[in-house]
């Protein structure tokens, strides 16, 4: 009796199909997603039923953390530099090219203008560490926030203002920000919220 010969099968799997799929997925992710912006503070936005999406560009986002610190970011780097320039002018501070370059690449800013120079001299890693402890002053005596918004608006008239605040932020802080905006006649703005799956019980 001879043994049954088992045919030696090759265990090679053709990876081409797999590769096709992964490349497709990769393309999909690259095209549809936007990079998460680095934010100095963790912010959980409250949920709402609103379904309006935020516009693509020309956004001035105002970030408010639970303790009431205010940060800002502009989505166009050119605007960032020009705004820094004109705010510097307003306070009589001139920035060097190198400082401007550094400011341009930072995603979010929120530094009192007096400490801006010292802040920009720091390394990027150090900047991230200290940024969270600053914030733009919004009080009525020294309302730098107002100046920032005003200058940014002057540079880019098509700017839309979006407020992103943490759900536990006291209303007092929001009120301060809103009053500042009202003083600047910025009466139209967006509030960023996250999606809440709540079906309204209409009946």
């Amino acid at each position, binding site marked *: 009796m001879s043994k049954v010969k088992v045919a030696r099968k090759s265990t090679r799997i053709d990876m*081409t199909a797999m590769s096709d799929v992964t490349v497709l997925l990769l393309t999909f992710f690259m095209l549809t997603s*936007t990079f998460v912006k680095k934010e100095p503070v963790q912010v959980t936005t409250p949920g709402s039923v609103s379904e*309006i999406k935020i516009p693509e560009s020309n956004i001035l986002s105002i970030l408010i953390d639970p303790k009431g610190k205010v940060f800002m970011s502009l989505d166009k780097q050119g605007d960032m530099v020009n705004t820094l320039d004109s705010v510097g002018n307003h306070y009589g501070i001139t920035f060097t090219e190198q400082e401007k370059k550094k400011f341009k690449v930072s995603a979010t800013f929120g530094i009192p203008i007096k400490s801006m120079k010292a802040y920009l001299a720091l390394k990027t890693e150090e900047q991230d560490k200290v940024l969270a402890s600053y914030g733009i002053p919004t009080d009525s005596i020294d309302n730098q926030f107002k100046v920032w918004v005003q200058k940014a608006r002057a540079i880019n008239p098509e700017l839309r203002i979006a407020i*992103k605040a943490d759900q536990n932020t006291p209303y*007092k802080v*929001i009120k301060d920000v809103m009053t500042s905006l009202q003083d600047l006649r910025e009466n139209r703005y967006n509030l960023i919220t996250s999606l809440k799956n709540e079906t309204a019980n209409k009946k």
Partner: protein
Amino acid sequence: MAEIQSNEGGGKKKKGGSKQKKLSVHIDFTPMVDMNMLLITFFMLCTSLSKPQTMEINMPSNDKKITDQDRDAVKASQAITLVLAGGDSIFYYTGQPDYKDFNSLKLSSYKADGIRAFLLKRNTEAVKKIDDLKEKKMQLKISLDQFTKQVSEIKGGKNTPVVIIKAADKATYKNLIDALDEMQICNIGKYVIDKMTPGETFLIKNFRTRGELSKNAAK
């Protein structure tokens, strides 16, 4: 798929010796897949797919030049004032505040049976109309443009309530968003965010002490 056959002559090595060998170039795609998977993981972790939701609001201008005459006076019968107090509590009163009677201020909640039920009741007419419109839209009887136009007409109608939202300093941002959400759910087109006046603070205190303050004031 991943093989290239250079088929000049075909694979007849055994028969003729002179003909060329069949060249089969297999490319191993495994490293390619590995790399792609890594990239996908990177993109999945570092990017956000969905854009955040927003709410558009228009605030009244606080320009000093605008006199009271220019403002639209709100009929007392249509006005509802929501007062967002700290600790996730919400109060409301209709029309003019009554400082003497602490019961004129009503305590409500953010839940569906709280403020929403009340607002829906006050806005029944508009809600009904909008529901009808939605039905029509679902059956494709009207276009989206018509729908939005008619909805805004109904929302701005004469007999719809006007809601004034006032938030105390202790209220959170979430409270404000929740209140604005209710406006949307209840199809209220006319609402405004206003500042707290000492009157409202008094009303809340009066409510919490069950009319102590107004008693003292009367003395």
